[in-house]
């Protein structure tokens, strides 16, 4: 009996499904060890988390609410990643989206919710888009590393928000709490039926479908897929690399910006500090776990939404620290990236295939 590891010539057709599942399982196993070490019963902890995230209507609603910004930001970063643009600025793009949406809501009292929300949506998309496009322009024309620039832009956006809610936009009646006044009711995203889930998730799902069409059915999506996979072939075909970098970064930022609008108009109904607990960063893991596929982003975002909600539950019922869910997130990313390599190999057990004895040596002159 012989066991050997071989590189796969052809990727297994199951890889896209198996690899994320296996990475998840491995992350859960390793995290279980950590639970154990921290003195908690891992089975009980996972049960608590699961029930906290999916165990009741209330839990599911909470999970979907958290999944909404993750879908939008995940979709956005996946678009940029697809073109090998490492946009880690979704967090900042989300914040400027929230700022722009709040600006519309606070300054223009529209009587029509549809007009009000529509304008908030557009303003948020535009602001997030521009926030993403700036690093895009720097990358396209100056070759600046977008990892650095998008990260820096996050701080600018977050501190800009703080400035606004402490300063010029501060609620005059709000004493010392750093937040703006409440939006007019017309600027609130309606709830779905009689749940606590707001309309942001509908927007997100529509954008998932549109993204999928954009990437797989249109000329521009084709350009992005080619440019992301082989820059030289894109140039050979005559595609405009600079234009595509800028556009993709705009698109990516716009989606994150819309997440900002969805959070302010759907949950807080005002602009406030710390409006996102790092959705823009978690979205990076969401996108990788989904292997950058728009539809899979939904599943992976719901999973991570559950992880966040379940992590909170753990804190309440087992008084574990919140950082547990951060550890689990990190482990998942680790194994997702590792899984890619894992699945390009296969393990072969047993005798070598097709071993036949050589035919009796022919005599050669």
């Amino acid at each position, binding site marked *: 009996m012989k066991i050997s590891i*071989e*590189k*796969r*010539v*052809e990727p297994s057709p199951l890889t896209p499904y198996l690899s994320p599942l296996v990475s998840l399982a491995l992350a859960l196993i390793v995290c279980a060890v950590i639970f154990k070490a921290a003195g908690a019963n891992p089975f009980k902890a996972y049960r608590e988390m699961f029930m906290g995230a999916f165990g009741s209507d209330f839990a599911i609603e909470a999970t979907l609410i958290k999944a909404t910004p993750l879908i939008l930001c995940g979709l956005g970063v996946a678009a940029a990643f697809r073109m090998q643009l490492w946009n880690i600025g979704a967090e900042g793009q989300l914040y400027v989206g929230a700022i722009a949406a709040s600006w519309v809501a606070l300054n223009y009292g529209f009587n029509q919710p549809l007009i009000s929300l529509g304008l908030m949506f557009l303003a948020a998309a535009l602001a997030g888009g521009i926030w993403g496009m700036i690093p895009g322009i720097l990358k396209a024309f100056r070759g600046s590393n977008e990892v650095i620039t998008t990260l820096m832009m996050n701080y600018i956006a977050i501190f800009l928000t703080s400035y606004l809610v402490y300063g010029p936009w501060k609620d005059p009646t709000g004493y010392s709490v750093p937040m703006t006044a409440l939006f007019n009711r017309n600027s609130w995203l309606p709830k779905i039926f009689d749940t606590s889930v707001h309309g942001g998730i509908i927007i997100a799902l529509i954008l998932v479908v549109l993204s999928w069409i954009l990437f797989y*059915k*249109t*000329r*521009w999506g*084709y*350009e992005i*897929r*080619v440019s992301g*996979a*082989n820059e*030289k*072939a894109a*140039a*050979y*075909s*005559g595609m405009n690399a600079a234009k595509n970098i800028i556009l993709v970064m705009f698109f990516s930022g716009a989606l994150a910006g819309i997440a900002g609008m969805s959070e302010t108009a759907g949950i807080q109904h005002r602009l406030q500090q710390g409006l996102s607990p790092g959705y823009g960063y978690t979205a990076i893991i969401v996108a990788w776990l989904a292997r950058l596929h728009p539809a899979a982003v939904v599943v992976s975002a719901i999973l991570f939404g559950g992880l966040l909600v379940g992590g909170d539950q753990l804190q309440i019922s087992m008084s574990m620290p919140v950082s547990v869910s951060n550890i689990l997130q990190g482990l998942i990313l680790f194994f997702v990236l590792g899984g890619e390599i894992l699945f390009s190999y296969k393990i072969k057990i047993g005798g*070598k295939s*097709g*071993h036949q004895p*050589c*035919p009796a*040596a022919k005599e*050669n*002159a």
Partner: protein
Amino acid sequence: MAGGKLVEMTDITKRFPGVVANSCVCFDLVPGEIHALLGENGAGKSTLMSILSGEYKPDEGSVSVEGVEARFHSPQDAIKLGIGMVHQHFMLVRAHTVMENIMLGLAGTPFFMDRKKLEAKIMETAVQYDMKVDPGAYIWQLSVGEQQRVEILKALIRNTRILILDEPTAVLTPKESETLFTTLRRFREEGRTAIFISHKLDEVMAISDRITILRSGKNAGTIRRDETDEKDLAGRMVGKDSLFEVKKSEKQSGGEILKFNDVHANNDRGIEALKGITLSLREGEILGIAGVAGNGQKELAECLFGLRKIKTGTVSFNNKDITGFNPRKIREAGISYIPEDRIATGLVSSLDFPDNLILNSYFKLPVSKGPFLNFKYIKEWTKKTIEDYDIKVGKIKNPVGLLSGGNLQKLILAREFADNPKVVIAASPSRGLDIGATNNARKLLVEQRDRGAGVILISEDLEEIFQISDRIAVMYEGKIMGILDAKDADREKIGLLMGGIKLGQEADI
């Protein structure tokens, strides 16, 4: 049973994921011979020799040297028995000098070494084999031919008895090849043994005593040179009677369609690579551009296709100035480009066949309608292309990176010829392809010519240049050294031009 055999490899089988590189191969060497190993690309030549030089372990089979079974655990074990291999890709440290590289190759290099003694030894060996080298030169300063000499010296200095050269002439000019052959003959005169890997029939006939042919990983015969000829060898190599013929009709070429006028351009490192190219192409002709790689051919193609900036000078197409056009406009004008590096430039290996087929037409009718791709048309086009060009694709949805070189080239050719271009520029269209695929590529280029297109064929392979060109231009150091009618050209003339010697000047050298 050794019967005076120096080396016997018996029933060697070596598998790589998805391929059997060697299958039950027997191979032997007698002392003092030059033994050629002939076979198409991918036939398993390098693999077999890497087994003999201790690089790979065979999955099955045995190797014996002078009748004693040899189990190599590393190349060092083979070196101890006097077996040395010069690889296709050189293994030299570029930032070190020739001498330092040779020192590194010596077994048990002491930390301090008598440089004087070694230098003397290098010079002695170099003179003995008529190989000019400068021990103090850095590897990066050397041409490929010179680097190869260093590799050979490295082997000779270790008292190699069995020297394996893996496709040594692939990187040499015809003149440099001759020099190499002289060295090899001298090596043989001393009773030592050499294995010469090649897929070029003329070379094999010129240098070897015996020839072993590999075909798809199997031994397709071991023959004495004087009992065979090129036709026989070609037949064994491809398994059919020679496919070497590409039929080409006599044809009058038409008017001028493309003209380079005193074009200057830099290479990637900012050094001038084109130093005033003036060249014109006619309709219905194949203009071969011969030359050793790195003399500006790549830059020439890229300038024409808008992928490289032209510093001064112009390119005109049908008397219209197209200098500075981008690739898309150039293609729309009717010019197609078959790039040399298929995988790196010509294709997107992670995307599937249809996605690669539409690479240069995805933006226009009927491949797309408005902003949307037209999948119905793409599907039909894919099906038709696969049938017309007889492409083996396997699953359509698989990334094309899994296809063989010949099938990839067919895909590129099908794509580039789809719009009946007026000018085709093909860079090394058959590099890395086996004979069947090579002939197919050449045949398709000739078809384009017969249809009336002007074809520029950039190739290092003189066989290819002579086979299908109507006129032959030779590039050397960014200039056109001369342009000959194919009828007046012969290997010697082209070889001189490739070496930088203008015709009529050779007497001065």
